């Protein structure tokens, strides 16, 4: 099986604080890989390093066999990586539809000089827009967002906002999806919906998923493998059974 994501000795520090200390792991295609650990352990830092938002101080990040260390986020996203954010980075002043259409940004061909072709039905820009609109509608159908299609993203209830962010990440047809605490702030019903969606996505699109999560029930139920972090160091990587019983993990995290 091919290795989709590889981290080799990734290190990131902020001044004296070491947020990630020589982290290495690999994720296979189609796997669901979870990262757990107490707050401040450096989980989001890892995502930011993979994404390109932070410059790593050491080590490298590989995507589909290609070295993406130090590439800017928009370049990384061109290579098929999408993510959601812990603190919800929705485009609040735009509608759900517009948020999702931005997910299609990479694939749209409208440009300054073919802009006037938006005016007639057969125009390049107009056909482009309609094609991608249809794709977005498919995702809306998948995640049941029809009722909020034209509402402003900042007005939606929190659970829906998380769904919109997930839909937006999906709209860019990634091969790898990074989910940063997708279940945070969701009630029980929404959490169970989330499990369904993740399984659906995995099955339908054959996406590799990396998840940062605190909810152990969620993590153990959907993950293929888990990595436990503490103080920037990786404690153990393995299947849910192995990790949940590991003594250091229990001491640091599970209590």
């Amino acid at each position: 099986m091919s290795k989709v994501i590889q981290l080799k000795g990734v290190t990131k520090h902020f001044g004296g604080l070491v947020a990630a200390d020589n982290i290495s792991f690999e994720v296979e295609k189609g796997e669901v890989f979870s990262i757990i650990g107490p707050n401040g352990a450096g989980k989001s830092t890892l995502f930011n390093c993979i994404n390109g938002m932070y410059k790593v101080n050491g080590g490298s990040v590989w995507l589909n066999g290609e070295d993406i260390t130090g590439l800017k986020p928009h370049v990384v996203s061109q290579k098929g990586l999408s993510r959601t954010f812990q603190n919800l980075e929705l485009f609040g002043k735009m509608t759900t539809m517009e948020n999702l259409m931005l997910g299609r940004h990479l694939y749209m061909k409208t440009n300054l000089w073919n802009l006037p072709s938006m005016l007639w039905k057969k125009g390049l820009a107009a056909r482009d827009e309609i094609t991608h609109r249809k794709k977005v509608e498919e995702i809306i159908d998948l995640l049941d967002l029809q009722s909020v299609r034209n509402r402003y993203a900042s007005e939606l209830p929190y659970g829906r906002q998380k769904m919109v962010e997930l839909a937006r990440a999906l709209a860019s047809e990634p091969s790898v999806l990074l989910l940063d605490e997708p279940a945070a702030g969701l009630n029980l019903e929404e959490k169970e919906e989330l499990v369904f969606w993740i399984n659906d996505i995995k099955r339908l699109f054959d996406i590799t998923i990396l998840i940062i999560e605190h909810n152990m029930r969620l993590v153990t139920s959907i993950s293929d493998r888990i990595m436990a972090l503490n103080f920037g160091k990786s404690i153990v990587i393995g299947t849910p059974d192995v990790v949940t019983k590991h003594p250091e993990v229990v001491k640091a995290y599970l209590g």
Partner: protein
Amino acid sequence: MFYAMPNNVLLWNFRFFLKTFNLFALDKRISYFEDISLLKDNSVKRWSFLCLLLFGLVPFVLAEYQVFIANLVLVNVIIVLGLNVLIGNTGQISLGHGGFVAIGAYMTVILDEQWLPFLPSLILAGFVAALFGFILGIPALKLEGPYLAVATLGFGLAITTIIGRMPFFGGHMGIIPPPLKVLGMEMTSNTHFYYLCLSIALLMGVFARLLIRSKIGRAFSAIRDSDIAASSLGVNVVWYKTMSFAFSAFYAGVGGGIWAYVLGFISPGNFTPVLSILLLSMVVVGGSGSITGSILGATVITLLNLQGEKIQELPLIGPFFEWVSAHYMSISGLPNINFVFMGLTVILIILFEPLGLFGIWLRIKIYFKTWPF
């Protein structure tokens, strides 16, 4: 259908009027293309036609001097259309747009005098302004808030000062543009200018509208709302931010070029930071991020700025202020009263309707949409 038709012919005509112009708007099923198209359905098309007609008839209704004022309004509309994309859509600040207006004005005149006919000069001047806009965009990438404001202020100030000191540009004395010839036609009167301004404003307005609802406009809005998320969705923030500056500078340059001809004379004194601040207020008072807002804001602020002294001529308010002036103020007459009114209007509009004039327009529309409840 026939049993519902009223007997009263007047009422029937009234209902026909309402339906034709869709004053009771109902949501109906539309295709994707209709959703994104400029003129959505028949009623919008009819309204647009009506507006176009009204605008076209303006020079026949107003006096020569008033047409001149209308030209100035149109020039400002063009500039503000671009500026609004930068401020309202991309979320940046520019206190230095007067500089781009200056570049457009001077470049157009200089090119027209010696090398190219008017329209190519205008377009080329716009591109030169866009180039400078692009240059400003580069330091602006990392700045926000007051830092960005000062950087743009400095930029605009630098441009106008440099233009003002170089004898090539006529220095303090300014320069006079050559007689205007567009497509072989001589343009001498304000009415001619009016139709020129109107056509250019219309063209650029449509283009801006298309831009906002397209991939590029969405990328701009994404940068405003969350450049982190935009970046991780594939939006090249550096490219789009500088493009936004360049785009708004282009509009400012074109507006400046036309302004030079409308005024008949330009000098550095036209392009002080006051101009930039006026433009900024047009954006915010009109409604940041909307085309209609740009038009409304430009109109209102320009009229207030130029016609403020006319307050004296108003029936009740005029004499009241004269009385106040005579009794409490040291000076007779009403100097500087237009500043008082402009400042007051700006404050009141923003206080009561943060979305500006466009917000007020939206409220009116919604009120009528849900009438009679």
